[in-house]
């Protein structure tokens, strides 16, 4: 039989309709803004209850001399709290994983400390450290470091036993096992922790500012609220949300670079086509 004789009608290839990944949330946000705008017009909502997107945009421009520097100051608090959380979190996780005594001592205290609502301790920090930047960084740190410890500890601990056997049969020292096997193995988990921690640090900084602050976006929000300047309040919230998303995305980009080889990244690449 010749090749021509067995020609089968080609099945039509169905192309799945896809957009670039960034397009989906962008379209969703635009839709929401449109619905927001249209609902205000239909239901005739007063501006001090809910301003229109245009009014919020205008407020962002009008009050930028307060919003901009305030946001910058808060970003500083967020990053400081986050950085301390990362260093302390990873160190504590290493201690927990490498010593049974540390695990039995630190772990229950850690979990117990999470039950205490941070909002309740924040005023205490203000009493101890004043209205300056210290209590805000502390609250941000306190909320952010817990997911950091847990994720890192889980990652460090989940190395398969045969891999450790192999390392020992090669004569690896404890340090070599840590840096060549445990730490890289834990990276995907550590990045999961980093993403939770950066989000938590944003919340922590704002909570800290709400308790008492002389600077920062939280203070701008409180003042706008007191003056019934709803448009400024919304502008601040928008700015804060954008900041949170951008910080999260920065961690995600770092993750993509650092753990290209991991399953979680692979799946993302495959479905992107």
């Amino acid at each position, binding site marked *: 039989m010749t090749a021509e004789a067995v020609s089968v009608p080609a099945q039509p290839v169905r192309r799945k309709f896809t957009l670039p990944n960034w397009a989906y949330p962008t379209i969703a946000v635009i839709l929401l803004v449109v619905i927001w705008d249209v609902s205000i017009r239909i239901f005739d909502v007063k501006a001090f209850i809910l301003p229109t997107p245009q009014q919020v945009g205008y407020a962002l421009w009008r009050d930028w001399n307060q919003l901009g520097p305030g946001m910058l100051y808060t970003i500083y608090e967020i990053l400081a709290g986050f950085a301390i959380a990362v260093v302390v979190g990873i160190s504590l996780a290493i201690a927990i994983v490498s010593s049974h005594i540390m695990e039995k001592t630190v772990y229950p205290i850690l979990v117990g400390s999470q039950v205490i609502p941070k909002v309740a301790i924040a005023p205490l920090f203000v009493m101890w450290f004043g209205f300056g930047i210290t209590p805000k960084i502390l609250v941000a740190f306190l909320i952010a470091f817990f997911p950091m410890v847990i994720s890192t500890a889980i990652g460090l601990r989940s190395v398969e036993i045969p*891999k450790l*056997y*192999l390392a020992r049969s*090669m*004569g690896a020292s404890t340090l070599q096992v840590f840096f*060549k096997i445990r730490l*890289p*193995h834990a990276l995907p988990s550590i990045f999961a922790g980093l993403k939770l921690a950066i989000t938590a640090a944003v919340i922590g900084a704002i909570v800290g500012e709400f308790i008492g602050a002389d600077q920062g976006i939280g203070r701008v929000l409180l003042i706008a609220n007191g003056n019934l300047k709803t448009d400024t309040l919304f502008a601040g919230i928008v700015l804060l949300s954008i900041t949170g998303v951008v910080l999260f995305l920065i961690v995600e980009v770092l993750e993509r670079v650092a753990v290209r080889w*991991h*399953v979680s990244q692979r799946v993302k690449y495959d479905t992107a086509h």
Partner: protein
Amino acid sequence: MAVSIERVSKTYGTRTGEIFAVDDVSLTIKDGEFVALLGPSGCGKSTLMLMMAGLVARSVGRIAIGSTTVTRPYTDLGIVFQEANLLDWRTVLKNLMLQIEIRGLPPAQYEARARELLKMVGLDGYEQKYPFELSGGMQQRVSICRALVHEPPLLLMDEPFGALDALTRDQLNMDLQDLWMDKPKTVIFVTHSISEAVFLSDRIIVMTPRPGKIAADIKVDLPRPRTMAMRETPEFGAYTKQIRAMFEDWGVLRTERTPAQKLGAVA
């Protein structure tokens, strides 16, 4: 490298009580011998192998490799487990070079050896690939190369082909024989496959169900290199038959069909 095991037993202490895994095993393995440890699942084969490597402590007895009594992880060897256990973040070549890095051997010289080994198992061109880009069989080939790259005199393998499909398994049996004939070394090969043990080994140590004792020590007198076709010869069949009879005696292999199977056949 010769291995001597003298009256070794192992009892695991667990929360639910003690598990008697290996019972009074004595065994001498000559330098350059290819030995299979064959026995039903859970009979203590892995335990015995890990005790030889000094990775699991024995309860009683003595194990010596060459003139060294094993008291801590023995390093002058290579190990292959059932899973390839490659490091996901390292390329194929870098996975092999882990062995060299940790041992502090000169990388330039051993990189050449690494490439040569990969070529021998048909993985030239894959040096810069990551493990997730490889099939299970390819990953296991890499893990075998990793165990050989530092040219150890002793190779321990714990059911290395147990997770692979039958075709890949046959292919890797051939590859392993080639590697072994290229550079003869002592191999201890744990398996529960009778035909795999006969195909590969000079000698088969058959272990009883748990607690594992040595039930038989069978010398396999088949010419090398062995071929897949030899598995159909009467000589080969005589060995598998002899071992299968023991498994049947212990009830780990049923000869009769179960009532359920008979019912199924009728319907």
